[in-house]
């Protein structure tokens, strides 16, 4: 088997994206979803139910009395918060596996993914981009999922990738491509495909390091994820191994004619949001 074939086999063996979360997403996509229908979907999964209640009763919301029923919690949180909670819960489990090859701390990939998702939301909101919020959050959250699979295969190739990056001429993703013949973005696209995600999300994941190569109809999403990734890495929410060896994609900034000060404001808004998110998600900032 070639390395690519082995990796495709590993993608096939990856645990599916949690069914409960996917079904809840579909239910939440209806403009007038039914709370009782949603509760029926969620209550099947005890861990998910416990998580929702835990969040509702966390200090962050500071509710005067304890929320004890799932129904109450669903009503209280509302569609957006619920969606993000469900997605983050599923994504954190996927990212927080030990990453042997890329030798990063188990939670580093996860923190980077979360930071990218928060940054992407800040971009969408602050730059008033006309694109579905849910789509942006999901694509950004899962953009590096290919690293989870790839890292178990690169143990013996890792030094070659690293020394190319050290030369200063290759980004981490370019070095992956040179050494392996493919990169984590491509593999991530395949994983999203195997999870039956919509084509826009698959494309945004697959092209997050080369947004201008993305099919035209999905390019905006790929550009948002690429820029969010750039800014998250720049500020220091990277994955450790690759440092800041990541190529900048400023297409979106150019199109919107944004300058230095705008970028600083985006970073500021990001940090404010990130602190809140870390609080809610129980993630440490470092």
């Amino acid at each position, binding site marked *: 088997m070639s390395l690519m074939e082995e990796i495709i086999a590993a993608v096939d063996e990856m645990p599916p994206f949690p069914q409960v979360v996917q079904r809840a997403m579909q239910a939440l996509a209806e403009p007038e979803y039914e709370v009782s229908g949603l509760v029926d979907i969620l209550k099947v999964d005890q861990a998910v139910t416990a998580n929702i209640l835990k969040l509702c009763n966390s200090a962050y919301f500071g509710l005067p009395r304890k929320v004890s029923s799932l129904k109450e919690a669903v009503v209280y949180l509302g569609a957006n918060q619920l969606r993000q909670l469900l997605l983050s819960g599923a994504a954190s489990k996927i990212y927080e596996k030990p990453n042997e090859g890329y030798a990063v701390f188990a939670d580093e990939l996860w923190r980077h993914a979360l930071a990218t998702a928060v940054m992407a939301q800040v971009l969408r909101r602050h730059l008033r981009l006309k694109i579905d919020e849910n789509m942006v959050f999901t694509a950004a959250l899962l953009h590096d999922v290919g690293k989870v699979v790839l890292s178990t295969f690169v143990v013996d190739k890792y030094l070659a990738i*690293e020394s190319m990056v050290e030369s200063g001429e290759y980004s981490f993703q370019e070095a992956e491509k040179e050494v392996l013949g493919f990169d984590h973005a491509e593999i991530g696209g395949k994983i999203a495909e195997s999870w039956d995600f919509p084509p826009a999300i698959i494309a945004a994941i697959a092209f997050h390091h080369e947004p201008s190569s993305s099919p035209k109809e999905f390019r905006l999403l790929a550009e948002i994820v690429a820029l969010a990734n750039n800014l998250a890495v*720049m500020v220091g929410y990277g994955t450790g191994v690759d*440092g*800041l*060896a*990541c*190529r900048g994609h400023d297409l979106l900034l150019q199109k919107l004619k944004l300058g230095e000060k705008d970028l*600083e404001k985006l*970073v*500021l808004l990001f940090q404010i949001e990130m602190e809140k998110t870390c609080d809610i998600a129980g993630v440490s900032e470092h």
Partner: protein
Amino acid sequence: MSLVTIGIADLKVSNNPEDTLVTYSLGSCIGLAVYDPVARVGGLLHYMLPDSSINQEKAAKNPAMFANKGIPLLFKQCYKLGADKKRMIIKVAGGSQIMDDAGTFNIGKRNYAILRKMFWKNNVMIDGEDIGGNCNRTMYMQIEDGKINLKISKKGMVEL
């Protein structure tokens, strides 16, 4: 020994010789460490942005986010613990960049430039620095002796 963490956009000072101050993942941000070896007082600042003019309200709430507010505050808090400006040893790390020929993502560079400018105006000399490139840094300061260690991605531990 107790490890005292300085978050992003945060600063802390100490005169407890048992303490080691640490700040993680400096990308474009700057870690500024100042130490008075006689008073054995040290402080560490992790700022994100050069100038607070983009958001005065945030600057009032969290001065450590900005170079122009955080740097003076760091010195002031050290003076309160008995540090003297003339004896201060100053070390700086961070200010990295992603790979970008156009220089769009150069907040790291500007974070460093404003520090140089402020120090020049106030006659402050930098005693050691590790700036720029595309690595990620973690910075440690031992209050006991002011020793600064850097953990640099792809390089490992070095003393600054």
